[in-house]
């Protein structure tokens, strides 16, 4: 007698769950599309091929930093050093090219240097047992920036071979090269996070570290790897940025760590770990890029831009909190 009714409510509940899951997946995408629609209405210049490519190109560096940051945040950590590591890698690559070392070796060196500094972050966290990733990465943020200034003497190093500039400024059939780089990194990271055991371990560590330890997951080496990848992606971002600017300047990426964190959080990752996707992070990075670009087109001063972006970050996370609360109510 009770069976059919409870069966129906079970079906209704699973239907509602499915809708909520789609909402969660698409919530940020819908917000991004709404923002684009408004900007299209307000400015004739927004929805043009050149401008859209411009948004993509300008978002590329933040997207790469955010993808590294995503891995870190999924483990319930934070990497404050990505902006400074980017600056340091810029200067190292520029210095090497000035010294006559081939462009491709210099580019690889930038990635290697980023990976090395990231590994140091991870080792400081896991071997020195510093209490929270905030601390080693805050230290690295200052050290890397300081070293960048020391090496360069505080001056930008300009004038690179065309081969090096191509990654930042080149195009393949109208599509900017940095966009292609980001797409490749996205594909690799998505497969890494969803299809490899190491990737799944990262979610487990962030979701419940105790459980991860009890299940025999090598937590320390996974954490070190995550910070190394974050640093390596900052090195890759440095190549794009230096190539686009045709110069390696020591103050590149000041404050970039905060934009990358914002992109990850807007993209639906949880600061408490265990939750976060590549696609969400890209949407988050695009949201910030579109906002900057749109406000520029509308002639809003950069001072106001900063204030608007601040409001958007808080709103995005608040909407997510509300959505989660209603979701947990519905499942009870």
């Amino acid at each position: 007698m009770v069976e059919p009714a409870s069966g129906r409510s079970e079906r209704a509940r699973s239907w509602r769950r499915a809708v909520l899951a789609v909402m969660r997946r698409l919530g940020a995408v819908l917000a991004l599309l709404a923002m684009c629609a408004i900007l299209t209405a307000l400015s004739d210049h927004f929805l043009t091929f050149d401008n859209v490519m411009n948004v993509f190109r300008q978002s590329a560096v933040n997207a790469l930093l955010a993808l590294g940051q995503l891995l870190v945040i999924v483990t319930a950590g934070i990497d404050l050093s990505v902006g400074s590591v980017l600056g340091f890698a810029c200067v190292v690559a520029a210095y090497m090219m000035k010294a006559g070392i081939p462009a491709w070796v210099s580019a690889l060196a930038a990635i290697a240097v980023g990976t090395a500094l990231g590994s140091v972050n991870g080792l400081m966290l896991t071997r020195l047992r510093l209490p929270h990733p905030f601390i080693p990465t805050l230290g690295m943020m200052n050290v890397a920036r300081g070293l960048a200034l020391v090496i360069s003497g505080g001056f930008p190093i300009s004038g690179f071979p065309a081969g090096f500039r191509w990654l930042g400024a080149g195009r393949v059939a109208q599509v900017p090269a940095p966009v292609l780089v980001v797409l490749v990194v996205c594909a690799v990271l998505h497969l890494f996070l969803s299809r490899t055991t190491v990737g799944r371990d990262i979610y487990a560590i962030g979701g419940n570290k105790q459980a991860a330890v009890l299940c025999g997951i090598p937590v320390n080496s996974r954490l070190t790897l995550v910070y190394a990848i974050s640093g390596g992606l900052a090195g890759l971002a440095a190549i794009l940025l230096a190539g686009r600017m045709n110069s390696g300047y020591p103050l590149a990426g000041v404050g970039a760590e905060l934009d990358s964190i914002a992109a990850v959080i807007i993209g639906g990752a949880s600061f408490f770990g265990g939750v976060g996707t590549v696609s969400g992070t890209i949407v988050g990075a695009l949201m910030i890029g579109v906002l900057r670009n749109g406000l520029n087109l509308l002639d809003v001063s950069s001072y106001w831009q900063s204030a608007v972006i601040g409001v958007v970050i808080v709103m995005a996370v608040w909407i997510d909190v509300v959505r989660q609360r209603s979701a947990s109510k519905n499942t009870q």
Partner: protein
Amino acid sequence: MAVVRDVSFDVRPGEVHALAGANGAGKSTLMNIVSGVLTPDSGTMFWDGSPVELKTPADGRALGISFVHQELALVPQLSVGENVFLGRHPVNRWGVAWDEIHRRTRELLAAMGHTLDPARLVKELGVAEQQLVEIARALASEARLIIMDEPTAPLSGAETTRLFGTISELRARGVSIIYITHRLPEIFQLADRVTVLRDGRHVLTCDTSAITPEELVRKMVGDAPAFVGGVQPAGRSRELFRVVGFTAAGKFEDISFDVNAGEVLGLAGLVGAGRTELIEAIFGFGTHDRGALYLDGTQIRIRSPFDAVRHGLALVPDDRKAKGLVANASVGFNLGLTSHHQFLLRPRRLRESAGRAVRDLRVTLSSLDQPVTTLSGGNQQKIVLGKWLLVGARVYFLDEPTRGIDVSAKAEIHNLIGGLARDGAGVVVVSSEIDEILGVADRILVMHRGRIAGELARANASEERIVELATGGE
């Protein structure tokens, strides 16, 4: 000091072996040794007849020993299937084999007689289903011995029945189970044999058919001499504080009791019976669904601890370090926690009061500026209590007030409790030590699974009676 000493017992294939004993008898310690979490000082373990040495939980798992903890080791944000294969994802040439994870999870659950969507997130599940996920994980790792620590503690009656069904399935498949519990009916319903520990020592191992519930209680309790309290029994006087119909779904249900001025009310029960949740809810620190509170016969509303303090309630929480003290601050600061506002801009007066409290409490220290963590456990507990004495409350709730402190400090705290009652306060003491309850309380309420199982006057309370009520025996 040895927590567990000279214990020998064996588990047969396909056997449910109950491990019984009062709180603090050493059950969990013993099982941590068996599963490799702790290493013993001496002794040998045999697995399939040959001696083995476990250094880490991984060694235990490799042999086929799994521990289903009371605090479940699950990742709430991940799916059921993924939690079952956590740290051991099967892979194929395309990476993690999600199809296989889902198929095998479904099979494992079906083998236990359950269906659960492997793709659901663990955080959406109830406690009973989460427990099932952890048992499935044990089976996925081909466990041959599963240790379950108080598995029914968080479960409802129907869920318990289903768990028992699951356990029967496991037994039929030849899996052995060590079942830690202090609930008598479960032992007789479920277990083939039972091992009793008392004060870390092995009391007996026998077939459950060879012992009666009464005998088992006696084995668990022993012939410990009755505690001689230093507290005078106060006559029942004026009602001070009353709780009516307090309910929080899944934690405690329909709790009503009153406390008189000058009375010490003992709240006995097993760990997990809902006592801490109850008094924290009364104090406005935890939540409740229904229920009313009366002080001096007038209804009061408590939405937060701030309200509770305003009405003259005081709480000494169960976890001194986490809830009672600001660990890296000084003794003086901790004593002033409840009364800083009264001494605003008058730090000297605060120091005088704090100094007086320290002398009254007989805490020995070199300075009020000494970090509170440099004190012994007993003295720390006195500071937690002392911060309320500085403001003077009308109803005190003391949750395990003497847990983990030495005998002399214990006696002093018992004297303090008596003193509070003599001065006309109402005192509610939660304790899992039956001796303590019998020693300090004028009247005893026994809780079992979130309900009040019975009330005993001091005169007709006994250890056996309390254990019976607390374990759900009739």
